[in-house]
C-alpha cells in the first residue's frame, strides 16, 4: 500500500511541480501513470522510491518512509529508470553482485523472462543494445520479486514485438499483494495491461480510477457525426468518423481507449471530475 498525503514537490522552491497531492495506491493492481512530457510522472515515481524527497507532505510505502532509504524498504522496491545502463559484466558476475540484495530473487524466473523477451545475453551485458539492456533490466527487476515495481517509461526503446512481450510478461507476474506502477506518455503501450489509471497534469492528480470504473462511467465509441452533447469529454475527427469519449448514462460497456481518455481528461479536467464524482455518489 502506498499512501501519498498532501505531497508538495518542486525542483525549485519558487515553482512547485506538485502541490498538495494525495493519492492511495493499493496492492494487487497494475497502475498506469499517464502524463505529458514534463508533467511529473518520473518525479512522482522518484518520490515513491525515495530518490527524491517531498518538500511538504509525506509518502508512506508499506509503513516505511522512502526517503530514509532503509535496506528493509529498498529490498521490497525495484525502480527501473527511463535510461538504463548495464555495467560491463558477464551475466554470472552481474547476478553474483546484484541479486544477493533481493531475498526473493529467482534465477530460473530470470532465465524464463529473458527467453520470453528474446534477450540473448552476450559475454558482457554492456554489449547489449539499448532496447536489449532495457529488456534485461525489466527481466531482472521482475525476477527480484519485489513487492513494489516502479517502471519509468519502460517501453521507450522497445520494438513493437517487444512491447507485446512486455505486456504479457507484466500480466503474468502480477500477484495479489504486488504493486506495479508504469509511467508512460505512450498510452497505447499499456492498453489491455493496466487495471488502474492515474493521470497527472500540471502537478495535479486529474484521475485515479480503475479501468472498470472508467468504462462504467464513460463510453468510448466512433460515430459518423458528432452529436450535440455537452457531456462529451473528448472528440477527435478522423477518416472513419469521430472518436468520442462521453459520459456513460446508458450503462453501455465499451473498450477503453487510453489515448482518448488521457486527451479528454487533460483537456477537460473539470468535466472529468464532475463525471467521476457524480457517479460515485
Amino acid at each position: 500500500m502506498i499512501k501519498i498525503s498532501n505531497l508538495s514537490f518542486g525542483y525549485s522552491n519558487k515553482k512547485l511541480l506538485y502541490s498538495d497531492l494525495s493519492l492511495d495506491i493499493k496492492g494487487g493492481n497494475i497502475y498506469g501513470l499517464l502524463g505529458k512530457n514534463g508533467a511529473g510522472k518520473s518525479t512522482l515515481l522518484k518520490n515513491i522510491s525515495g530518490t527524491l524527497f517531498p518538500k511538504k507532505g509525506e509518502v508512506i510505502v508499506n509503513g516505511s518512509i522512502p526517503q530514509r532509504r532503509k535496506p528493509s524498504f529498498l529490498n521490497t522496491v525495484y525502480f527501473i529508470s527511463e535510461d538504463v545502463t548495464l555495467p560491463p559484466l558477464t551475466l554470472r558476475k552481474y547476478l553474483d553482485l546484484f541479486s544477493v540484495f533481493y531475498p526473493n530473487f529467482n534465477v530460473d524466473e530470470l532465465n524464463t523472462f529473458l527467453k520470453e523477451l528474446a534477450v540473448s545475453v552476450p559475454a558482457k551485458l554492456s554489449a547489449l543494445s539499448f532496447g536489449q539492456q532495457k529488456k534485461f533490466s525489466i527481466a531482472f527487476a521482475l525476477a527480484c520479486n519485489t513487492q513494489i515495481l516502479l517502471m519509468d517509461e519502460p517501453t521507450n526503446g522497445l520494438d513493437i514485438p517487444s512491447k507485446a512481450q512486455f505486456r504479457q510478461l507484466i500480466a503474468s507476474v502480477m500477484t495479489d499483494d504486488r504493486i506495479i506502477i508504469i509511467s508512460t506518455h505512450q498510452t497505447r503501450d499499456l492498453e489491455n495491461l493496466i487495471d488502474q489509471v492515474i493521470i497527472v497534469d500540471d502537478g495535479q492528480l486529474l484521475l485515479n480510477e480503475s479501468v472498470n470504473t472508467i468504462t462504467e462511467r464513460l463510453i468510448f465509441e466512433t460515430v459518423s457525426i458528432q452529436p450535440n452533447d455537452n457531456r462529451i469529454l473528448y472528440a477527435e475527427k478522423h477518416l472513419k468518423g469521430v472518436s468520442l469519449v462521453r459520459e456513460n448514462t446508458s450503462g453501455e460497456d465499451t473498450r477503453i481507449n487510453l489515448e482518448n481518455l488521457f486527451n479528454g481528461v487533460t483537456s477537460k479536467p473539470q468535466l472529468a471530475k464532475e463525471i467521476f464524482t457524480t457517479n460515485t455518489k
Partner: protein
Amino acid sequence: MNDTFNIKRFGWVFKKSVLERPTLMLGLMLVTLVITLLTYAIVQSMAGIAKAQVSAFVFGFLVGGSFMSSSALGYFSSNSSGTSFLMLPASHLEKWLCAVLISGVIYAAIYLGFFRLVDVFFVNNYYQGLDPNSPNYQNLYHSVEVFGFNNEIAKNIFVIFFNISGAMLLGSLYFNKVSYIKVALLVCTLVIFTYFANLLIAGLFFNHIDMAIPFKSIFLKVGSAIGIVDLPEGVNSAISFLISYVIPGTLWLTALIRLKEKEM
C-alpha cells in the same frame, strides 16, 4: 533486519563496489602506479634521487588518491547509475564505509606498498652505481636512503591526501557531472585565495615581506638578512590539529550526511 549496519550486506556492497567497475578501479590503480614509476625515473635522471622520491610520492599518491576518491561514490553522472546506486538495498553507512575503505585505506595501502618497492629498487640501483673506492663514497651512500613514511614530508603529504580525498569524495556527491574537475578548480581557487589573502593581511602588519605561508610563517627580507615570524606555538598546534584532523574528518563525515540527503 538491521537497517544501519550488517556485516554480510557490507561485504556484498564492498564486492559490488570493487567488481562492478573493474576497468575503472584497476585502470586508475594501474595508471597511478605507472605515473609514479615514470615520475620517479624522469625526476631522478634530471634532479637526483632525493627529489625523485618526493616528486613521485606527491604526484602519484595525491593525484591517484584524488581520482580514486572522486570515483568511489561517482555514480551520479547518469540518472540510471545514480538511481541504481541509491536504490541498492544497503544502508548509507555501508555504502559510505565502502567508499572510505576503497579510497582511504585500500588505495593507500596498495600505493604505499608499491611505492616502497619502487623506491627500494631505485635506491639499491643508486647504491650499486656508486664507486666504493671513491673518497666520497660514504657521503654519497648516506645522502640517499629509502623514503620513510614517518618523516615530516610524508606526514604533510598524508595530511594533504586526507584533505583532498575528503574534498573529492564530498564533491562527487555535490557535482553530478565532471565532479573531479569542479572540485579541483574549487580547491585551487581556495588555495590561491588563501595565499593572497594571507599575503595581503600580512602586508598590513609587516614591511619587507619576502614570502608568507598561510597558517605557518612569514619570511621578512631586509637586504641580505632574512627573518622569520612564526605563529605562536599554541596557535600553530591548534591550526595543525585543525588541518590534520578536524578538516579532513569533517569532509569525510559530511560525505556520509550528504549521501543520506542525496536526491537524484
